[in-house]
């Protein structure tokens, strides 16, 4: 089936050229068939590729340096306008009202009292200008400010020896990160973008900013978070994106 795609399109080819082309098509087709036994059987290919993705999670965790900082940039480097990105279009963005909002905590956390934005803003604030790298390949530089996530986890008495921190979002998005990344000095609960309250399109009321991971590991519109040892997966991760997706 695959070799069909490689058949010559034009009937104007000279005979010799045509024969050469067919010969090459055959060898390419044979090569395609070598892989085709995997590609056409979803269970085998899914199993192998899924196992390799899990293996890559382990490798990435092993080479992740908790003290290695993502490159930082200047105000002049900020991408303007910063691109909107989600699994829906910008006009479908989820609006969360600040009134009545509070961040819910769950799982292996000692103090599960929820946090209003007001209380989070009262905590020490940090900011960073870093590169957001999308799984698609493009990248953009932005400035985010908020609460150092490691400090926040320790403040609420999270079990930092647990494996995962999971997030649930107002737009039904969900994701999770490893604890080592959660405690990385540049991982922040972002409340601002370019020194202003985080706009709706960039994730109001808050977004997890993780400059050591791909963009889809930076959940927006976070409603609740929890600490766990049970693999929580994620919206894209469950569809096949690599879970660790570290930079």
């Amino acid at each position, binding site marked *: 089936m695959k070799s069909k*795609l490689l058949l010559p399109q034009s009937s104007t080819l000279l005979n010799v050229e045509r024969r*050469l082309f067919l*010969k*090459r098509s055959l*060898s390419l087709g044979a*090569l395609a068939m*070598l*892989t085709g036994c995997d*590609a056409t059987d979803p269970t085998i290919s899914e199993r*192998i*590729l*899924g196992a*390799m*993705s899990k293996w*890559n999670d382990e490798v990435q965790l092993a*080479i*992740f*340096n908790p003290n*290695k*900082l*993502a*490159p930082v940039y200047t105000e002049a480097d900020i991408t303007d306008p910063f691109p909107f990105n989600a699994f829906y279009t910008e006009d479908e963005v989820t609006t969360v009202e600040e009134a009545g909002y509070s961040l819910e905590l769950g799982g292996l956390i000692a103090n599960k009292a929820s946090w209003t934005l007001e209380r989070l803003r009262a905590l020490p604030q940090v900011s960073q200008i870093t*590169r957001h*790298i*999308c*799984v*698609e*390949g*493009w*990248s953009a530089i932005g400035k985010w400010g908020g609460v150092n996530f490691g400090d926040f986890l320790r403040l609420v008495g999270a079990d930092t020896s647990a494996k995962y921190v999971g997030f649930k979002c107002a737009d039904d998005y969900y994701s999770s990160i490893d604890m080592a990344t959660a405690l990385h000095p540049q991982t922040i609960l972002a409340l601002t973008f370019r020194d202003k309250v985080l706009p709706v399109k960039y994730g109001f009321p808050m977004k997890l900013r993780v*400059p*050591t991971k791909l963009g889809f590991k930076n959940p927006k519109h976070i409603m609740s978070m929890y600490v766990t040892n049970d693999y929580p997966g994620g919206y*894209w991760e469950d*569809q*096949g*994106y*690599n879970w660790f997706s*570290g*930079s």
Partner: protein
Amino acid sequence: MTTVESFEARPRVHVHPLFVRVFHWLNALGIFLMIASGWRIYNASPVFESLDFTFPNSVTLGGWLGGALQWHFAAMWLLVLNFLMYLALGLASGHLRRRLTPVSPHAVATDLGRALQGKLPHSGTTYNAVQKASYIGVLIAILVTIISGACVWKPVQLQELASLMGGYEGARVVHFFGMTAISAFILMHLALVLIVPSTLFPMIVGWTRKDNHDEI
């Protein structure tokens, strides 16, 4: 054209040692998987936005971005480990030095001129200067593509290396042109195998019959 009998009667000449043949075919598979999945990944966000160029999805691997990424990050182990094993064995055994050196720009120019005039003899066991330069070139292209790919994958952990290419976005460009160079080599390589098909057999079994090149 020689007869089967006389061909069979000639002594065997060893052309490619086993490790080279194993490397070659695993590398062919690895490169195929990496390029086919890489094109799909490229399509999700073309490196040069202004060019507006994408690869036909029908010639790509993975079905969607996530599938292509799974193939890419699985096949990279095959490609990289196979490549490192080849370099290690090739350098330690002296095979690379014996087969690919010496080669000078002057010799390449001379042999290229002869090749374009159709006067360059092809021997299974001794490479001409154009072959040497091409094989060294594609090995360098694969190495550069692997290194730039690692920088695209890990632009934070490998930021010092990535900065040599102008950071993440620079590494993407290098990775793209590395792929382009490898693709150009493959086109030329396949075309030459079609022109000199007797070179294919030794890459499978390792040997050919003496004076095989006379048949060309």
